[in-house]
């Protein structure tokens, strides 16, 4: 299975978030359900800023609401 560029980026960013927290990350794939990762909202805030640094985009800046369940749902916002 090949991953999209943004799926790869999100996996990398999330691995970094786990590292910051001193935790070992579980296996991450496009199907990973984000809610079940045990991350707090500041961890997601960190991931979103890192993604903005990489892609130049912040899909959350508009205040829009998204239905995000999986890692793939999040990655699509950056495509």
């Amino acid at each position: 299975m090949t991953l999209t560029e943004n799926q790869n980026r999100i996996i990398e960013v999330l691995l970094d978030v786990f590292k910051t927290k001193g935790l070992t990350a579980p296996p991450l794939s496009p199907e990973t359900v984000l809610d079940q990762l045990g991350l707090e909202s500041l961890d997601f805030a960190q991931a979103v800023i890192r993604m903005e640094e990489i892609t130049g985009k912040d899909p959350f800046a508009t205040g829009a609401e998204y239905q995000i369940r999986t890692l793939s749902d999040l990655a699509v916002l950056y495509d």
Partner: protein
Amino acid sequence: MLSRLIFDETIPLERKAVVTRAHSTSWSDLRAQAQWIFETYGDVRAHRVGLSFRRNAESYAALAALDRMRRDVFLFDAQLTLEETLRLSKNLRLGAVLVPEGTGRSPKLQVLELPDEERWSGGSSITILTSGSTGEPKAARHSWEGLARPVRKGAGQFTPTWFLSYRPNLYAGLQVMLQCFADRGTLAVPDTEMDPSSIAQFMCATGVQFVSATPSYWRRLLMFSDAKVLKGIPLVQITLGGEVIDQPILDKLRLCFPKVRLVHIYATTELGRCFSVSDGMAGFPASYLNNLLPDGAELKVHEGELLVRSPNAMRMYDPYSSQQAPVTDWFATGDVVEIKGDRVYFVGRKSDMINVAGSKVYPVEVERVIRMIPGVSDVRIFGKTSSIAGELVACEIVPEPDQDPASLRDAVNQACRAKLASHQQPRLIKFVDRIDLSLAGKTLRSKTS
């Protein structure tokens, strides 16, 4: 005050008054320059006069002459362009701006007259322009007497050499100059763009005994200049001010200069000098609160913020200052403090506070933790705008030489997890070569988005 020091009193004619890297000016030369400026420009009609202030003897001579001419003087940083100086002068409704002619060593001034001058205050005054939050300057007017009140004349024959780390046109720089000149000392003035090792060599070569600087300024000196050169400076006293003074910087200075007197000072442009501490410990004794202090100031804490009533305070904001405030008895300093036992500690500036999802974080609290980590040479904490949390804590770290970034990052994360709450922990860590200081020598904390 300055005019009295240069024109009226007995001066040590041959002694150096001002030393820069390129030149030195004796007291008699300084007086002659001031005299020449007084005679040449004494007929300037304007009473509200701007002075583009350079880091040299000629600018001090001009300032003394303007004091003698009883003008309201407004000090402009010489780094401003002429255009910007003129724009600000017009906004402040000045009658003229004096700009040094050419780049050489000449007391000659260019007089640029302006229309629409606001009324004269009626005496000699000095207005300090500091960058306000809007970008337009705050203009704090002091009387010369108020400015000079904290100056303590040294005992006997001792004539000190002072080092001017501060901008000469701001409150701290004026204090250092007045203290030095009142003692008939020598003022060693470095160039703006000197790197830390040249500064250390300059201090050594000029035989500096008194240095007043911010902790950030010292951190850079200790970090980037040769310890042997630093130890060769005949220092008597180090005065710290302008920023929160933490225990590590006091300890580092104590280690490098075991015999030096370490003093830290609390002063602001608006309040002037309020108090000093010389026991080598961070913070100040809780007994300072609600008592009359030696400098005449009184302190109290209201909702975590330090309030001060100071006889050394400015007279007023100029009517055309970007910031206006009623002249009140008690002045809210914007500094947040914490009382622990019999000591009061500075937590940070209210305005530097980072709001992480509704929780307050003061950069200094986080910097203190990171600065203790081996391999970290300097650090700056600031808020980074987040669409999800409002702000997140971000940090820039200057590593010591030969550090492995990956393991240093792990060490930083580990220490922060151990000592800080989740919202205080830096979420974004960047390694940089150096941390820039503001014009006032303070660590820049402007937020980035």
